[in-house]
């Protein structure tokens, strides 16, 4: 077990270093930040001076080293657009994304698991059909379009919900649904197939042979076992939500990390872009690692190689 965890940690670290290299070089290819930072009337010499003070005249690998040692100490550099440390800007936006993400997650888990389980219990039934269509739509619809259509229906035509911004729970409904739908689809399909697998197993037969009433067979014996893959997926989804937030936040003008990245790109604020993408990757990798270890812990039957 300890060996397994160490190995996974090591792999995660390598992964992270690789990604940081990619992100670093990418953002350095996106244009000369010095030209953006310098005032319009700066002379060539001023620009060179600025370049030197920022350390941008050094070779790239030196710059990378400076950058990465900063990151290790929690310093992601200065945002050009906001003129303050990137990490501060990030921290000020993160709670919003967290709120949106949790709401979407809660929605997708409740609806997805419920639909999936009920579909599996009665394959081909009313719920199964509804679940299939709902899941298919969720996986086929572009997030940005769903968002716009919700605005069209609930804000423009019905006038029930505000189009954008945040504050009350009303602001949260449409973004959370938009973001959650895709994951609901994945959760539904997985819950259904996990439940079907479990219901097909010998121990479910055994539970019936023992004369347990059907609700105990389903809710106790089957669901507990199906929950293992469902939880894994949920944990992975949590981080996938970071992807979806980009579009959702843009559509609903939600002041979170996703919009921050897009704004930073258009403002050519490369340190900020770098910071956001790197932190997102870190969260992503950390969650993956956590899920793997958790999985091995929950289910001792897992074979580590």
């Amino acid at each position, binding site marked *: 077990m300890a060996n397994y965890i160490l190995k996974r940690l090591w792999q995660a670290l390598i992964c992270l270093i690789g990604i940081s290299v990619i992100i670093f070089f990418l953002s350095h290819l996106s244009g000369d930040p010095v030209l953006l930072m310098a005032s319009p009337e700066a002379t060539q010499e001023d620009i060179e001076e600025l370049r030197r003070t920022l350390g941008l005249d050094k070779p790239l690998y030196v710059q990378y080293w400076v950058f990465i040692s900063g990151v290790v100490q929690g310093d992601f550099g200065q945002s050009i657009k906001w003129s303050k440390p990137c990490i501060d800007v990030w921290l000020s936006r993160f709670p919003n994304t967290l709120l949106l993400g949790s709401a979407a997650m809660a929605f997708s888990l409740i609806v997805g698991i419920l639909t999936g389980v009920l579909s599996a219990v009665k394959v081909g039934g009313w719920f199964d059909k509804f679940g299939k269509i709902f899941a298919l739509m969720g996986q086929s619809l572009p997030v940005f379009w769903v968002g716009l259509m919700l605005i069209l229906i609930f804000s423009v035509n019905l006038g029930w919900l505000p189009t954008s911004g945040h504050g009350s729970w009303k602001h949260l409904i449409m973004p959370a649904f938009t973001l959650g739908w895709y994951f609901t689809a994945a959760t539904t399909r997985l819950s259904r197939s996990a439940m079907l697998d479990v219901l097909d197993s010998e*121990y479910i037969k055994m539970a019936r042979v023992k004369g*347990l009433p059907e609700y*105990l067979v389903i809710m106790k014996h089957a669901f507990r*076992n199906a929950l293992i893959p469902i939880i894994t997926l949920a944990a992975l989804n949590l981080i996938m939500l970071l992807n979806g937030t980009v579009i959702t936040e843009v559509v609903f003008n939600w002041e979170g990390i996703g919009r921050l990245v897009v704004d930073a790109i258009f403002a050519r604020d490369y340190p900020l872009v770098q910071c956001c993408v790197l932190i997102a990757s870190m969260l992503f990798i950390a969650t993956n690692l956590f899920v793997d270890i958790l999985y091995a812990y929950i289910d001792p039957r897992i074979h580590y190689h």
Partner: protein
Amino acid sequence: MISNDNVLEVQDLKTHFYTSRGVVKAVDGVSFALKRGEALGLVGESGCGKSITCFSLIRLVPRPAGRIVGGKVLLEGEDLLTKNEKEMTKIRGKRITMILQDPMMSLNPVFTIGEQITETIRVHQKLGKMEIWEKVKEMLRLVRIPSPEVRMREYPHQMSGGMRQRISGAIALSCQPSVLIADEATTALDVTIQAQFLSLFKEIQEQANLSMIVVTHDFGIVARACDRVAVMYAGKIVENAETRELFNNPAHPYTIALLNSLPKMEMKVDTLYSIEGQPPELHALPPGCSFAPRCSHVMEICQREYPPQKEVAPGHFARCWLKG
């Protein structure tokens, strides 16, 4: 001690499967009786309908494809096939129960052994927590699980196959059932563990005067554990006799072939006898006797008509034209 009253009487049981390839008559008119305290062996090749027969008895035929389409299953005089699902839930596990084939798969991996025995007692008997706890310990002791207090807090994956199968046994016995069905319960075990398990169960069965149906394809198990044998072929029971009688005077060519295919200790065998051909496909049975295509004594009538049951000796029944 075998008494004369029948605990279980199965009459003309029919279970069919409706598949896209046609109707599969997995169980096609099976009748037999089980006396109190008797162990009945149900023998046949895989796919002959043994397991489906057992699952039909407790009304757990895989749905929606499988259906019991006719017959009677009389458990202590009550027809189980007329019960609704709710009544069946109360009977299953309490009065008639089963040990499944694969001990590695049949216990739920996420609950403790104790919990899995406890819940069976809880749904069938009104007992206090402490009483149930005591009872679980008693059951574990009965199936010779060492240090039951420790073991009942453990999970299935912490135990060996033999131990798990004994735990399945403890679950099955926990409500003192009238009938216990063991569906290939020893097949997945090692040979030595198999023998252990068998003698343990034989002992428990004799002590508790339990009636058992032992489903197997192994005549060795039949010889050791069963008082009576029913041989199944293609959904029908072709021969039914007391164990000794069947071994000494097998009547049906299929039974004879099965017995001949056993290796014998006293003989030095170069080649084992095997039955020619394949078991028939149950969705396309030939008219007449279904064993006819593989039978070495096949006659013209065998191709046309299924033989009726005939008592070839007292208490020894067979379905074969040779004896008719």
